């Protein structure tokens, strides 16, 4: 158990270090999310309710996550570095978990910028929205990291990831928007928890099959 945790920590630290040095994914995500919010401003006609903007926040989050996820396994694929990780005695699922932790960190960093920007451009954000964002991030990253590994195998990887990911992101959007908008957010937050647990488990268990050649 402790070994597993150490492996995950080592792998997550590796990804964070790589990003700190390369500095390409995170700035792209930040720029993307702010640009998206500006586009949304122009996409909302005058008479739209404030609630429509709340919905669009979630669109921004999902697509910003996609930007980060598309980059998730790039070094592992391009330089066959996944081989190095597969040769190591660590559990395959630790690779998934380590990568997920790193992607989650990037997404959270992007949201630290996005949420205040949203509050400035549109309207304030309540605690229920923030709670929903936290919960939704876990689910998005869990599923997204697995699907990024799946897409990485295919010839059309950048095209494929959004196609695979978006249907699975729909429940997350429902949970998130519901929590932001509805009177009693508890149901939606509970639903997001359910989504996280179910899909994290299935992603954790199936990663091994995705990476074996």
């Amino acid at each position, binding site marked *: 158990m402790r070994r597993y945790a150490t492996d995950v920590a*080592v792998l997550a630290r590796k990804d964070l*270090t790589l990003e700190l*040095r390369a500095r390409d994914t995170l700035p792209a995500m930040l720029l993307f999310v702010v640009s998206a919010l500006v586009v949304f401003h122009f996409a909302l006609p005058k008479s739209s309710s404030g609630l429509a903007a709340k919905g669009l926040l979630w669109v921004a989050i999902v697509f910003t996550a996609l930007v980060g996820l598309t980059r998730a396994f790039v070094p592992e694929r391009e330089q066959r570095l996944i081989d*190095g990780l597969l*040769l*190591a*005695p660590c559990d395959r699922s630790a690779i998934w978990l380590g990568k997920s932790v790193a992607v989650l960190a990037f997404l959270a960093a992007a949201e630290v910028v996005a949420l205040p920007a949203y509050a400035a451009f549109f309207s304030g954000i309540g605690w229920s929205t923030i709670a929903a964002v936290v919960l939704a991030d876990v689910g998005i990253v869990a599923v997204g990291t697995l699907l990024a590994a799946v897409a990485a195998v295919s010839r059309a990887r950048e095209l494929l990831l959004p196609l695979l990911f978006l249907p699975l992101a729909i429940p997350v959007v429902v949970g998130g928007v519901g929590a932001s908008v509805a009177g009693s957010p508890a149901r939606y937050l509970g639903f997001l928890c359910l989504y996280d647990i179910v899909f994290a488990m299935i992603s954790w268990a199936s990663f091994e099959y995705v990476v074996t050649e």
Partner: protein
Amino acid sequence: MPLGRHGRKGEEPAGPDAVSREVIRARGLGKRYGDKRVLEGLDLDLERGGFLLVTGPNGSGKTTLLRLCAGLATPTAGSLDINAPREAIGFAGHDPLVYRELTAIENLDLYGRLYRVSERRERIGMLLERFGLWQARNERAGSFSRGMQQRLSLCRALLHEPSLFVLDEPYSGLDDAGVDLLDRELADLRAGATFVVSTHDPARVEPLASSLLAFA
């Protein structure tokens, strides 16, 4: 064409144990990628302490065989038994498997932690020095020349003191000094480990080999 012939060379391999279990055993081994059949009907026995030399032209399936032996690919036909756990296998192939943005020492530290190498720092230092990379230890692996990357790759393969070495053209990219270095390393390690080595220059390695597999 993936035709394999298996032959044994001369004398028995020098090994400490009287009874040696096979480290690698393949029967009817086949591997196909999509429609392309790269390996077909291959039989192989590699005893503990043995040294299998694999030769053949480009595209004949050497790399595929070595990847199978290292556990990086699974057979699509036949059977393959590798009696070595993952932490006992050291693999070096065409890709150096080092992260470009990390320094040499960081790369080895990463693998050292994943392989749970004891006395990690000392071992890393020793290997870097032995392979002439100590001066460049804090430079990013991406800035290394091809030869230096190959040396780093070999450091990575040796780091955890494996008992089964799977080396796919380990001499490629090395300069003369590097070649001598590798010669010495292989000679040093020969007695304590099992080897599968593919090369374009069989004459260099042949004295060490106990069996030969030639792809046509």
